[in-house]
């Protein structure tokens, strides 16, 4: 007896009401949106409920939506996996663009430690309560969060890279 998406949806709506919304089946993964304030409680429920049993946190990552309204500029995406029924789920929490903050999931999954550090490193999303929130891949001296969509694709002031040597002359741009 596999775990049906409808069952997951009913249980979550029953337990959290308006704090969970936007249930949609993308390919074979049920995805939904949560209020950031309740994200930790919802992850705990998904992990510890006797029927849901999402025991494994596959990934935590960030998304930047620069065109969204201020309150929904960033998203933190949690992928979880139920090993017993082999069911996966995607949880999205949208965050404010000026103060992207969300509670850490390290109290539930130790693996969230480095995943949240990586998300902080590239998006500048603050995970409140994280035991050691510092950069993990980039240099510590770096001031920017490179995966935010606020940088030009290329630095226009460069003099050491000549477009002609990279197949990017204007002629090439017109002959796709």
């Amino acid at each position, binding site marked *: 007896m596999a775990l049906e998406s409808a069952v997951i949806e009913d249980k979550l709506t029953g337990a959290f009401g308006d704090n969970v919304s936007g249930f949609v089946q993308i390919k074979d993964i049920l995805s939904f949106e949560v209020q950031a304030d309740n994200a930790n409680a919802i992850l705990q429920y998904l992990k510890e409920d006797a029927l849901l049993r999402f025991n494994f946190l596959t990934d935590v990552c960030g998304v930047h939506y620069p065109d969204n309204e201020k309150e929904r500029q960033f998203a933190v995406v949690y992928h979880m996996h139920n090993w017993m029924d082999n069911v996966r789920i995607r949880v999205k929490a949208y965050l404010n663009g000026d103060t992207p903050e969300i509670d850490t999931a390290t109290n539930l999954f130790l693996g969230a430690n480095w995943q949240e550090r990586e998300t902080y490193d590239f998006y500048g999303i603050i995970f409140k309560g994280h035991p050691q929130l510092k950069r993990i*891949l*980039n*240099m510590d001296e770096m001031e*920017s969060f*490179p995966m935010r969509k606020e940088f030009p694709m*290329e630095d226009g002031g460069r003099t*050491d*890279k000549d477009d002609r040597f990279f197949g990017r002359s204007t002629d090439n741009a017109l002959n796709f």
Partner: protein
Amino acid sequence: MSNSSDIKLVDAPEGVEGQGFFATKLDSVVGLARANSLWPLPFATSCCGIEFMATMASHYDVARFGSERMSFSPRQADMLLVMGTIAKKMAPILRQVYEQMSEPRWVIAVGACASSGGIFDTYSVLQGIDKVIPVDVYVPGCPPRPEQILDGVMKLQEIVKSESVRRRSSPEYQELLASYNIT
């Protein structure tokens, strides 16, 4: 079994020869010795490092050039080969390795990444190691074949042969190091 006639000897430098003596410049003798015993320190981070492993192996045999002993420590090496992408986070480590080598020391940047950042024109990658340490020879290629690496080593041998023994204490050289903030 190789015949003794197969053994290639290095040509003697220019000099005056006579009965029982041979006179030449100290520079030439020292250059000859240095050039034919360049001890490499492979700083290999990526695919170019794999090519260098082929260069070290029996088929290409970099030992033929007097580079038999790889030093994986900066202490007894005089030829630093930087092979592969150097991220900005790696730059201080590379600099430290260079600073720990004693004079005379030479640097070969092997491949596009070490020479210029290569295809990784991005915020996290150092756009050429000559931003942090002085470089003597650049080997083009992505990755270069072992022949090209050997060619780079031979180019460096030419440089070493003709280097004056006083070059390292010259004001120009001090100025070069000072421009990299290396004392």
